[in-house]
């Protein structure tokens, strides 16, 4: 596939890795912000290629993991209602609330449907005028334009049986929260390539300047991540702290104006609670009051939520890269300390299952896996 295969070229990857080895003189801690980047790192085994001194730490870039528990409970309460068709991206189906997940709600009779695009909800709403279609609108800035278009189109068409449960989160405030923490270890960032395809990267310039951290906006294919890492390390080694654009084939500083405009028409910035972290001001979106009729939280009266937040959760520290999953008390026996996934991999491929099985891999240390990846094997 064009623009994918060439960014998986092992010879080019090896060149970049050699260059990294050549220039790196001290250990560095780099965070990749986006869950999709984390996924790519795990899927392609990229971290086993990096020099030992370059440590990739996984960031809070998975909207699934940062959606607060009470929001998930609200989603479940709505999904249980007999008059509701609850639509969601696949990612959210397996996330547990205080009691159940959307799968169990489906097993109990709830009409829960997986959609690929928010626009699918329009068709479902038209086909079922007697039902209330509710869409679980999660995502970072990459997904907001799509979710905004759903509301916009519903509004234009005068559809009365569609609403969204909004749980949008924004990246720049999250980065600041990470950098403000006194325990922060992160020295450089791989910035979120697809978020910036929509928003541009001007928002990251003041952050880079204020905290003196390199931020290289990177793509998702292995070559993108390796090159982005190289660009961060080059900056770190030379004491620079700038925003650079590795993903220039897809984005520029201004981003996508038409998308930003529709988002601004439909949403406004608001405070948001991040699971395990707390409320970060100005870190989310909510529907503007003109679109109140499409706000599921206002359409549905949900008061009987009993959210049980556990007391021993260290997820916030995991999300901020301060601790690794193996520090999480429940995972001390399960997660591989050399290969932490962070709180980012509740994905339908069973990558979350990887959480459980990494305990098996504690005996497989990094040295041996590096040997396998560079030398022997089939």
């Amino acid at each position, binding site marked *: 596939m064009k623009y994918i295969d060439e960014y998986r070229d092992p010879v080019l990857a090896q060149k970049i890795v050699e260059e990294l080895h050549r220039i790196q003189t001290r250990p560095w801690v780099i965070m990749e912000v986006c869950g999709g980047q984390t996924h790519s790192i795990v899927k392609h085994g990229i971290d086993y290629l990096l020099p030992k001194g370059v440590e990739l730490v996984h960031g809070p870039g998975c909207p699934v993991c940062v959606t607060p528990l009470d929001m998930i409970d609200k989603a479940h309460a709505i999904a249980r209602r007999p008059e509701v068709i609850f639509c969601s991206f696949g990612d959210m189906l397996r996330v547990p609330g205080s009691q159940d997940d959307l799968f169990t709600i489906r097993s109990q009779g709830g009409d829960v449907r997986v959609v690929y695009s928010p626009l699918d909800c329009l068709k479902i709403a038209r086909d079922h005028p007697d039902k209330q279609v509710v869409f679980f609108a999660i995502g970072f800035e990459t997904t907001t334009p799509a979710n905004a278009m759903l509301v916009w189109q519903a509004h234009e068409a005068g559809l009365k049986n569609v609403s969204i449960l909004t749980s949008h989160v924004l990246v720049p405030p999250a980065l600041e929260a990470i950098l403000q923490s006194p325990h922060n*270890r992160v020295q450089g960032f791989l910035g979120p390539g697809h978020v910036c395809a*929509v928003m541009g990267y001007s928002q990251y310039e003041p952050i880079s300047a204020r905290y003196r951290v390199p931020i290289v906006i990177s793509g998702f294919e292995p070559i993108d991540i390796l090159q982005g890492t190289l660009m961060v390390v080059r900056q770190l080694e030379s004491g620079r702290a700038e925003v650079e654009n590795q993903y220039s084939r897809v*984005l520029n500083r201004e981003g996508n104006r038409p998308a930003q405009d529709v988002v601004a028409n439909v949403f406004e910035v608001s405070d948001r609670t991040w699971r395990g972290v707390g409320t970060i001001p100005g870190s989310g979106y909510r529907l503007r009051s003109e679109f109140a009729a499409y706000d599921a939280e206002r359409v549905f009266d949900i008061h009987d939520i009993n959210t049980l937040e556990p007391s021993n959760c260290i997820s916030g520290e995991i999300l901020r890269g301060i601790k690794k999953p193996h520090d999480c008390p429940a995972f001390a026996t399960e997660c591989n300390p050399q290969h932490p996934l962070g709180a980012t991999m509740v994905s339908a491929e069973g990558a979350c299952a990887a959480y459980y099985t990494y305990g098996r891999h504690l005996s497989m240390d990094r040295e041996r896996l590096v040997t396998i990846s560079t030398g022997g094997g089939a």
Partner: protein
Amino acid sequence: MCLAIPGKVLSEYVQGSMRMAKVKFGGIVREVCLEYVPEAQVGDFVLVHVGFAISRVDPEEAERTYQLLQEMDQLGELDEPEFGEIATHAAKGGGS
């Protein structure tokens, strides 16, 4: 948050009030909303996330940057670290 794949625009049409396209990804074709990439033409590659094109892939920029990468070991233009800045950085950044 960010699963977006590049695909080739095969055809365009209007559905309701939205500009749509048939986009080819490897061997399959999917319907995609083009409202956010009005400049996309048939034959262009667009980056698609949840059924929406969010950006156009710039073929010249892709070619240029890929070439640079491939020539990397011939460039030899790396910044040599300046020790003054490194000292500052280390004092600020390394460890908690």
